[in-house]
């Protein structure tokens, strides 16, 4: 049994009367890749926002390896503690260049000087195939490059735990295949991963376990094959992907 990287315990979050996280509990061990699926509005992105501190839970606990209880910790400190994330809708710093987007993340997320952060950013730009646009304004990028930038910027913060929110969504088959290859390589490199995705075959080619959310509730967690064939998941996913 590997040590747990993240432990989420009975997390609850409501928006007005809508329960978006309903007593969510799970844990992820070090070096693992966990996939999260569920219909739109199931509360997947909200769960990420709770883990990163962008939202505060109504109740429940979040524990991070090395850090212990981080439930009340602001996002900036959680990032420094090793939680990196991408946003479902890409949110680059528009006026900065692609390289500067990474540089600010590496300099502040890792506490490096710009000089020391530079090599790391160069390597990540190579790995995420963004080197050709490194010195272009991020606001002018196409969707695939924006998605790649989300991934690259999250990596630049030096995450121990990387959260990816629908990073392959909206891309063509070919585009998503190359992005998935990049993500697989990152995971092979030892990163712990939690990955929300609708493109199931892409997801299942990387993750070791799959968690299914519906109406803010965990309705199943286990090996991808078992999950895909469970009755609960079939009912929820009827019509989303055959």
């Amino acid at each position, binding site marked *: 049994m590997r040590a747990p990287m993240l432990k989420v315990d009975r997390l609850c979050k409501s928006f007005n009367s809508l329960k978006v996280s309903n007593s969510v509990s799970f844990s992820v061990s070090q070096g693992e890749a966990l996939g999260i699926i569920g219909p739109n509005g199931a509360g997947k992105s909200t769960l990420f926002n709770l883990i990163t501190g962008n939202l505060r839970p109504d109740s429940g606990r979040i524990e991070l390896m090395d850090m212990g209880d981080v439930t009340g910790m602001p996002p900036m400190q959680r990032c420094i503690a090793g939680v990196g994330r991408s946003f479902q809708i890409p949110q680059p*710093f528009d006026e900065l260049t692609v390289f500067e987007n990474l540089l600010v993340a590496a300099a502040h997320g890792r506490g490096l000087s710009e000089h020391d952060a530079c090599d790391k950013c160069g390597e990540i730009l190579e790995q995420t195939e963004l080197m050709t646009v490194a010195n272009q304004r991020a606001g002018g990028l196409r969707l695939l490059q924006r998605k790649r930038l989300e991934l690259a910027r999250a990596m630049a913060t030096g995450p121990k735990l990387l959260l990816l929110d629908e990073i392959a969504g909206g891309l063509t088959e070919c585009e998503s295949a190359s992005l998935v290859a990049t993500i697989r390589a990152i995971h092979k490199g030892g990163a712990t991963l939690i990955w929300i995705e609708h493109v199931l075959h892409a997801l299942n080619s990387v993750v070791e376990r799959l968690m299914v959310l519906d109406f803010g509730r965990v309705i199943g967690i286990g090996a991808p094959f078992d999950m895909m064939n469970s009755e609960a998941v079939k009912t929820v996913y009827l019509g989303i992907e055959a």
Partner: protein
Amino acid sequence: MRYSIQTSTRFSRVSLALAVAMVFMLALLPAYASRGLLQDMFFILTMLTLAQFWNLLAGYGGLLSIGQQAFVGVGGYAMFALVILHGWDPLAAVAVAGCAALLVSIPMGFFSFRLHGAYFAIGTWVLAEVLRLLVAQFKALGGGTGTSLPRAATRNLWGADWVKEVFDVKSAAARDILAYWLALALAAAAIAGIYYLLRSKQGLALSAVRDNAEVARSVGVNAHRLKWQIFLASAFGTGITGALIYLQKARISPDAAFSVTDWTAYIIFIVVIGGIGTIEGPILGVLVFYLLQSLLADYGSWYLLSLGVAGITVMLFAPRGLWGLISDRTGVQCFPIRRLLVQHSNKTGENSVRNHH
């Protein structure tokens, strides 16, 4: 080391050298210039410094303050208090006056950071008004009507004797020369300091926060601390400048020292017309402002009206100001902050900059 960062361009290195040379030349100005020209230059330089600090707050930090007159007033009055009540030399008092403004800005920050956007703006204005009313209660400094610096103090400024001897002038002119030098040093230091900040890691974070504060926090940027740092720095700089302005005027009153028109509205005009969020903008803006003022000052309310029309026209047709127009057309930047990634090719040992911005 396979990669490095490049910020300067050939043009910027030349313009930086020119700027340094310019400062030295301006320092020699008292040898040639008339007293009237020196006073005009003093006005331009102090307004430029105030504009740079407001630009730091609003243009880089997104903090739209319309309460800068609080710091001008506190700086001015702190200097007067030290001179009149404690017998300090006015020049020493100017330096300490910056600290007084800094102190006042701490509670102001706690209050106004609870507010956002337009509420922040109005909050800073209200606080400045409160300070004006408080200062007017202070009988030892002339209450509501104000007071003047004692002649003995303004005559015997540190270094005044030396200036009188070297330039062969009377003590009033010597005071103007000293004040001019300080204004020049202050403007140069403000620009150098702000440029240094923008080139630093904190400056990069500031740009990120301006684009998207929530995301900036998520990549480890301490947005809250940054906001405080620039708020305090701008209070300190504005306070020193205020003290210097009132050293030169030698007379202060609450209405003048805490005037929202003189110390905030004009400053906003300068920054907006020149180009907000750039260092070059306020420099250009203050020259335009000075020209308009010298051309139109005799026309009273027409003057204010034409400032308003000019400001609105620029905002509508060139939202990035005159400097924005110029740098868009020509691509030049005197104070570049863009960090370009340079890849070093291992084989040839040559450097290559990919996809120049």
